[in-house]
């Protein structure tokens, strides 16, 4: 396996695990931290949106510094989101939910990893 392929798989796994971990925290603390209305799901509460995307941003920032793939990280998180949605109660507008969630995840992950790579590039310790 080449170094690039390994970085992509790392990014995918990290993105997937980050989303799953954020969702697990939301399930555990849904009533206390996130308002408790509706089912635990990151797009059901403004605070949960900020929390999940915040987690993804921090992780993708670190991933960018480590030169992991931001796109792979976003794909991993989106895969986890899709799985969680389909294992849940379902939604009558699930394609729209997936599109909206996917766009938010992609934008956050790509922004974070780009910033991370820029930090890494500008760092005096790089090269």
């Amino acid at each position: 396996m080449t170094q690039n392929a390994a970085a992509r798989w790392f990014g995918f796994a990290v993105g997937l695990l980050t989303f799953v971990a954020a969702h697990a925290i939301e399930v555990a603390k849904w009533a206390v931290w996130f308002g408790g209305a509706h089912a635990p799901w990151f797009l059901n509460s403004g605070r949960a949106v900020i929390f999940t995307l915040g987690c993804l941003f921090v992780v993708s920032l670190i991933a960018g510094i480590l030169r992991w793939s931001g796109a792979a990280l976003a794909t991993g998180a989106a895969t986890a989101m899709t799985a969680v949605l389909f294992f849940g109660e379902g939604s009558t507008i699930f394609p729209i939910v997936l599109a909206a969630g996917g766009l938010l995840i992609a934008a956050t992950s790509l922004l974070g990893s780009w910033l991370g790579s820029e930090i890494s590039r500008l760092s005096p310790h790089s090269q």
Partner: protein
Amino acid sequence: MKTWMASAVVIVVLAAGAWLKAGSANSAAQAQGSQTSRPVQLVPAGEKQVGSPGEKGATYYALEAQTTRLTTRFRDGHVAVTERGLVGDVHSTLRDLAGNDRAKLRLNRIDGGHDMVNYEPTEGSRFQAVSDPTLVKPTLDWAARQVYGLVKDGADNLVWDGAIMQRKNAPRRDVDIDVDTVETNWANGLTARLSRSTYPRRQISPGRFVEGPVMISELSQYGAPVGTGVYFEKDRVFAYTVPGFTAGAVVIGADELKANYGGWPFTPDTTWLNLQMIATYHFKTLIAKQGSVSARICEPSRPGLLAQFFAPTVYANEAGCDDLHWLDGSILRDCCDDHDRCYAKSGCDANTWWQWWRSWSCDRCNMAVVGCFFARAGLDDRCITRQGCAG
């Protein structure tokens, strides 16, 4: 001679008895007369009689009496489930965040105005007390707030502070601030779900801007959304829409109430808002059935009780944007409600997104919601509903 004597004694005894009985009847009549001789309070024609300021009216209590179940979730995670029995008895159970029972409160009517209140905490001493009808009209909402207050503040040395029993010298607890969500289950399959949010500044009628913390009541019947009401707490404005019955959003503020009531006669609370939405829909439905209003346009067909019994999941739905409730306060909300109504009317479910060959009606619902999201994404978020947009 003896016969005459005996007859005379009998006559005297009977006469004395008759005299005593007549006297007692007369005094009883006099006593009764003195009780009912209070003057009748006449009200001049045309004069409006309103309830005491700060109190809700008789209609509120009549409607509240038809609430079968009230689920109140507090901000600290406690949940009070309060139910009304067949004979009007009320049972409230308070559970903590982990789902453990903390206390039970029971109300049993003992005469025309008094109730026996039984409080049974899982920890601490239980008590029973008689309610004071001059201070409180026990409702499901009252029971939920009372049991929460007793659990939070303790139940020793109780006194009446307004309509609430609480510990002597304890600071008054504003339970409404502690309430996070309320679900009111009413007759005829009506359910109102209240939640809180904060809305950015928006124009809901010409020249009227509102913003800030809001209470949102989402009304559904047998799972299909039928209306939405929003109370802007800072601006004291109530806006609601019941598609098919109201042409756009109806906006009520202190100005509209000034003529008859001098403004809001009470501060709207979480339970009132749910009941107000239920009452609005209930009365408008009754008027429509009596034929005194024009035919309902765009009114979705309601799933019958029988169909609901056999296929409840087909129509099971949440008001607002399922799994996208973060957007419930935005103008995209109408897209979701229209989609839910369309689904209820055509008997669709989520599978029709990929099983497109099953029903053209469902395909139309799905295409419409996608188009609605695209069309609205670029609009300013300044209206409570699409119909209520000014300009």
